[in-house]
């Protein structure tokens, strides 16, 4: 299984999330993570969708099917080595009065994570990184007792010097695919 990151640029309209996700459903492809937000260009949204698939060919077909949705402006498919990507995770860690205290220095220096909230008997730690880095930290902090853990979807930018949005001319005249 190879991990693919699919970036979809769309007009910001109601129901588009459904139109995109049913393309995956119909082909029985599970979405590992999904992030949507507005881009630097107003009215244009960016979807970052992570999937795992065995066949590159099938992912190419999937990309073309997504491109076919009327409100979709462009679709880009990436392998991990083509992109810089990160996720953010929040850990709510138990710190009872006479329990083991958290080693803030290790957390900061070794794991590049930060305590963002101090509660009476718990702390909230924010860790940004790849999935692997987040789970490395997860294993380190687990003995303290994780009360709650949440991880965001992936966000990614391509390693090319241009911005993807530059591939979106004001008036698109081509049906182009990038994978």
């Amino acid at each position, binding site marked *: 299984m190879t991990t693919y990151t699919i970036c979809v640029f769309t007009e910001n309209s109601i*129901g588009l999330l*459904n139109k995109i996700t049913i393309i995956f459903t119909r082909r029985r492809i599970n979405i590992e993570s999904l992030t949507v937000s507005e881009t630097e260009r107003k009215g244009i949204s960016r979807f970052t969708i992570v999937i795992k698939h065995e066949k590159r060919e099938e992912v190419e077909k999937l990309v*073309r*099917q997504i491109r076919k949705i*009327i409100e979709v*402006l462009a679709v880009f498919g990436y392998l991990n080595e083509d992109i810089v990507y990160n996720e953010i995770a929040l850990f709510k860690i138990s710190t009872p009065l006479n329990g083991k205290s958290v080693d803030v220095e290790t957390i900061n220096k070794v794991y590049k994570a930060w305590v963002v909230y101090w509660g009476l008997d718990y702390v909230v730690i924010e860790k940004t990184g790849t999935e692997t880095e987040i789970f490395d930290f997860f294993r380190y902090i687990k003995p303290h007792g994780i009360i709650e853990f949440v991880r965001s979807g992936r966000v990614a930018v391509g390693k090319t010097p241009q911005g993807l949005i530059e591939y979106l001319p004001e008036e698109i005249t081509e*049906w182009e695919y990038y994978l």
Partner: protein
Amino acid sequence: MGNLLEIELKQETLVAPTQEKEGQTFLSGAQAMMECLLAESVDNIFGYPGGAIMPTYDALYDYIDRIKHTLVRHEQGAGHAAQGYARVSGRTGVCLVTSGPGGTNLITPIADAIIDCTPLVCIVGQVKSNLLGTDAFQETDMIGVTTPVCKWNYQITDPNEVPEIMAKAFFIAKSGKPGPVVIDFARDAQAAKMTKPFVYKKVEKMVSYSPRIVPKQDQIEKAAELINKAKRPYILFGHGVLIADAVQELLDFVEKTDIPCASTLLGLSAMPNNHPNYMGWLGMHGMYAPNVMTDECDVLIAVGMRFDDRVTGDSTKFAPQARIVHIEIDPSEVDKIKKAEAPVIGDAKEALKMLMPLVKKGDFTGWKNEFRKLDVKEYDKVTLRDLSQEGKIKMAEVVALLSDKTNGEACIVVDVGQHQMVTARYYQFRKPNSYIASGGLGTMGFAIPASFGAKVGAPDREVVGIIGDGCFQMTIQELGTIAQSGLAVKMIILNNNFLGMVRQWQQLFFDNRYSFVELQNPDFITIARGFGIDGHTCSERENLSDSLDKMLDSKKAYLLEVIVEKEENVFPMVPAGTSVSEIRLE
């Protein structure tokens, strides 16, 4: 093309509404909808009223002299009628139905239209916008329900949106690879007045959607190179040729290059059957030579077709030796089933025009003769038997006789099953857009409403629906629509008292276990008469010719029921999922 159509409405151009400049009365959403239809030159719509679409029907009342509306008997009939209309005329079919069940009854035609690339604009009523999501009376989430089966959908909740959205709707439905568009029209947006003057600008381009019409020159050159090098080239053309109105271009191309060609089921009638380069049609029940020769060609030129599984059988074993040129308007179809060495993205008409000067004049007499040799085998094993005139009447002889009597020029609308395949085999098409069938979805019940719609779209043509006894009962109520319209739609039931195709499969692949395929049929002629349509039954061969004459001579709608051989099988046949080389002749 090119200039924008702007309609500034003047008071005198409207019968009922007034539209004054200074903050007075503007058009309601429903009236705006009617103006949009006029601006798109819509002359016929098919529909069924109900609660949530009543303001639009009320507005329609003022437009009945300019927009002809046909009241169907079930919304599915409206959809298929609009499909028949669109397929025969090349225009966009329009349906108007209410919310909830009205919309859900339209799902089958919408799904049919997306897979057979038929341009439809379906205007569906919706509950008032303040009731959305409350499980209100006749509320169905039409956007949610239709998203997987339509090309585009949009919910209008503000009357001011109507002109812009409808312009987009008509553009999207008809352009590129055509398909159905669903407009979910909230009742309050129909009734409320616009707050600005109605201005309609036709859409010819959208930022997020602009299908490529003219192919790239380098793709054309690569394709031409491949075609020119071929020793045994073979053209497979499909529905795309008819949609792109590329019939003449295909003919020119074939005549210059002398390449043999075959049609897909939906490509039928794009080339006259008697053309010397036309080898027949291919697919599961297609002809022997066109199927088998896919394994013999060195270059396969696919024009406006998508390698459907009913064409390829096992696609991994389909023409594995061939280098493929694929002319296709939808980029997602290229490499979807068969990898194309020379894809040409664009409209079939433009692509063929651009290829013309680049391809060599050819002579493939020897290669074409190889097809003809196989035809003899098919003739001996299948055609002779089908037309033997022994025993009970066979479907084939009815179709062959009809073909002779209409000189191959009628518009034939078929339903789904054995009669559909037999008609494709034995009708000798001479004119384009003459085989209207539900190909991709295989919707039984398609033919009665679609033949009606075809007659509306081509009133000067002889339209004959050829329908199985099972199919006929799926949309039998549309006989009422036909009777009320007064249009001379001709219908033939090929009655074998069986769901024939399923029975054939049960016989061949399920050990003769006939599970629920025998029908106890009603008296079809009495039913037709009850609807006000005359007809008669023919069960003897000696009456067949006179029976067809009587039907064809009728100035009004007519139903001819022909009692045919009960357990007839359609051959050739490529069993599902096997390779075309495993084609069976008996």
